[in-house]
């Protein structure tokens, strides 16, 4: 039986991983757009992204768009696998 991943299960991180896992495999989203779409403040989002990055579930990359620095984030393969397992675990619990 797949197990709950408590790194992902925190509400904000669950939403972040849901959004990033819904993107195509090579796609990235910039920090501000992600925060806006999930209704998270910059500080809150930054802290959760740091946790997810330390766990290896996401990867952040700095890019210049129109000469302005932007941070783009994407789920890693490991992050997608753990997210899928977490969702499978939630489904199992619902069936119990």
């Amino acid at each position, binding site marked *: 039986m797949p*197990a*709950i*991943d*408590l*790194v*992902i*299960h925190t*509400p904000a991180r*669950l*939403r972040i991983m*849901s*959004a990033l*896992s*819904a*993107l*195509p*495999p*090579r*796609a*990235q*989203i*910039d920090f*501000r*757009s*992600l925060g806006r*779409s*999930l209704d998270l403040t910059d500080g809150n989002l930054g802290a959760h992204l740091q*946790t997810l990055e*330390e*766990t290896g579930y996401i990867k952040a990359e700095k*890019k210049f*768009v*129109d000469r302005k620095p*932007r941070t*783009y984030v994407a789920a890693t393969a490991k992050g997608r696998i*753990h997210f899928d397992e977490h*969702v499978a*675990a*939630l*489904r199992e*619990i*619902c069936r*119990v």
Partner: protein
Amino acid sequence: MKPNTANPVTPEDARASLAEVSRIVTQTRQTIAWSCTTPLLILWGVIWVIGFSANHFFPASALQSWLGLDGIGLGGSFLLAGPFRQRAITGLSLGLGRIRLAWLALLGYGVLWAALLAPWEQSHSVTWAADAPVIGRKLAAFSASVCMFGYVLMGLWLGRFFLWLGLLVTATTLAGYYFVADYFYLWMAFTGGGSLIVAGVFIRKFWR
């Protein structure tokens, strides 16, 4: 930091979490669809309205009209939905090069199949004058349904909206082809082109 994999979640928590996951996934996919397709739906809808209307009112110059309109459509598609535009609008860097290539491949094969299947060798026959309008309608229905096949395939990934849009326009194309042959091009202008424009406006208004 190592993932903690204990299991202290109640069924109610799990249900609420799954509902939230589903909501965010749908929202994200709709954002992708909005960034990729809204301008294209409206652009190609307008092109269909103009092109098929030209087919009806100026049949002698239909080929030239479509060549010009398709050129505008392809150039416009690159400008409206290229990676830089997408990033500027939504903050997404989608890496959708393969999807764009898939569309180009689909359109390329559509042109190839049309060239192979259309009975061009009959163009010198005595019955050509009578056959040409039917062949023209067949080619138009074929081209429209190839495009809609692309929407159906896209719908399998991006969401049912595109699947239903593809099926709806395919159905109206077939209905026009079989039941309103004399006004087929006008039918395509308003049902086909109109559906694309309405779908683009709908997504722009309600999905952003």
